[in-house]
């Protein structure tokens, strides 16, 4: 049975109440690594959003029109990852061509979007929660924006923290993890608003 939530609600929920990063803790490695400066965080966020939206749509089609009819749903992990990998390569080409500076800043983390578990997570949740195509795309797009919101917020906070008197032992990853934890706690406050499944 399909999910009863409407696409706008899913879109809203995936950004705020069920943020893939702060509620499900998926995509943490690039969240911590590329959140030192706001522009590169937003750049990676846009790339993740694009890949997440496109791959959710494509993986929906692959799942429902290739895997389900041929009883191959147990291959969904491989199929989804292949689609994600191909799309990341496409995004890499586009960024390399049109924004070499962003390409340099993102460095190794751009190809690593391939293994960004948030993207695979969204594709798998879409299947588990039985979303239709529109709901899936809304979830993918919202999930990407939610991930971008979280990384941009952390980057903003980390930029402010550069001037803050942080105890030496907590500098760098230590304080970033504490901030990420506090952000997750504050997002928990939204969690009862919408039940996504």
């Amino acid at each position, binding site marked *: 049975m399909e999910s009863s939530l409407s696409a706008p609600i899913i879109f809203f929920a995936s950004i705020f109440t069920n943020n893939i990063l702060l509620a499900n803790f998926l995509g943490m490695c690039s969240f911590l690594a590329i959140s030192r400066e706001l522009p590169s965080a937003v750049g990676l966020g846009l790339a993740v959003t694009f890949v997440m939206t496109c791959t959710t749509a494509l993986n929906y089609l692959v799942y429902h029109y290739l895997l389900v009819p041929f009883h*191959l749903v147990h291959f969904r992990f491989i199929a989804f990852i292949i689609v994600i990998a191909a799309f990341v390569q496409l995004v890499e080409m586009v960024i390399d061509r049109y924004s070499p500076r962003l390409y340099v800043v993102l460095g190794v983390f751009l190809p690593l979007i391939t293994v960004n578990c948030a993207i695979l997570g969204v594709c798998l949740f879409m299947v588990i929660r039985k979303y239709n195509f529109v709901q899936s795309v809304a979830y993918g797009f919202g999930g990407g924006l939610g991930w971008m919101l979280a990384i941009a917020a952390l980057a903003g906070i980390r930029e402010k923290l550069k001037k803050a008197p942080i105890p030496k032992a907590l500098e760098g990853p230590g304080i970033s993890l504490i901030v990420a934890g506090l952000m997750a706690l504050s997002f928990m406050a939204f969690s009862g608003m919408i039940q996504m499944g």
Partner: protein
Amino acid sequence: MMTLLLGLLALSGLCALLALLLEAANTVFADYGPCQVSINEGAKEFTVKGGGRLLSTLMDHGLFIPSACGGRGSCGLCKVKVLEGAGPILPTETPYMSEEELRNGIRLSCQVRIRRNIRIEIPEAFFLIKEYRTQVISLKPLTPFIKEVHLKLLEPSEIVFKPGQFIQFQVPEYPGSSEPVYRAYSIASPARLKTEIKLVITRVERGIATTYVHNFLKEGDEVLINGPYGDFYLRHSDRYMIMIGTGSGLAPLMSILYQMADEHIDRPCTLYFGVKSRKDLFYQDEIQELLQKLPRLRYVPVLSDPLPEDHWDGETGYVTDAVARDVTDGSQMEAYLCGNPLMINAAVKLLTAKGVTEDRIFFDKFG
């Protein structure tokens, strides 16, 4: 079974579709159109299809930039000055750059991609570097792990180099490598022999080039080389010379010693040659001949791990231990080192502590 086959078929189809999509995208996004490469303010200019690496593009046009790692960005040798058109510096380049080089626009040519018109500056000496077609005259085992590769130059038929310099050896496609790769080897033969060169190549476990040389290369085979490269060569002075070589690091030192014998450069010199055991010593007859020609040359072989059957009563330990025992005041000395990075680092530290100034220590570090 049917499900598995069907699954494989479906996934293969999906992969093929996505590969086609990526190939189409590549032709659109990776097409940078024709780009002009201008070298030394127009001394040489050519137009290339954008998208390629600067190092390989220059090589394709007969300009050979030194690169010991063959363009993988791990040796830091292929530096060129880019005046315009290289884009932002990459994180893969910065570890090899000093602050001054960063300010002056020095870039690693193997990492720079040509996306627009580019203006570069390279030393005039690089214009003299050529590609040579050669033929293997002989392959002689010098030790159980080291082979001497003797090459005759076919086209061009003569090479001019400074003893101590190295060439790049092209390993063609073979079962161990899907594409041609280049590796740097010092020339071990005298510079007076212009029509042939000798290289000394140590077998490295799973090394692409050394596996090729030790297992696949045969006498009579043709090999492409380019060069000569490097600023490791004899400086003219009257200072006492210390030469330290380990393993195949003896090669450029031999070439320098041949030069000294040929040009009657009678300078006081001690050659330290460090290996594990007696079976690893090579070119011993040649060194004896040099000792006859160079009366002030002293030879000190040093074994780090002599075997009982070696009956060795010479120097033992690391080669630097022997140097430390011999040298008391290095303030008037000059040093030439070639070998593995650990030995070079230890020797530089030791020699500077003994008073040899850094500008008088010359080395060729195996990367």
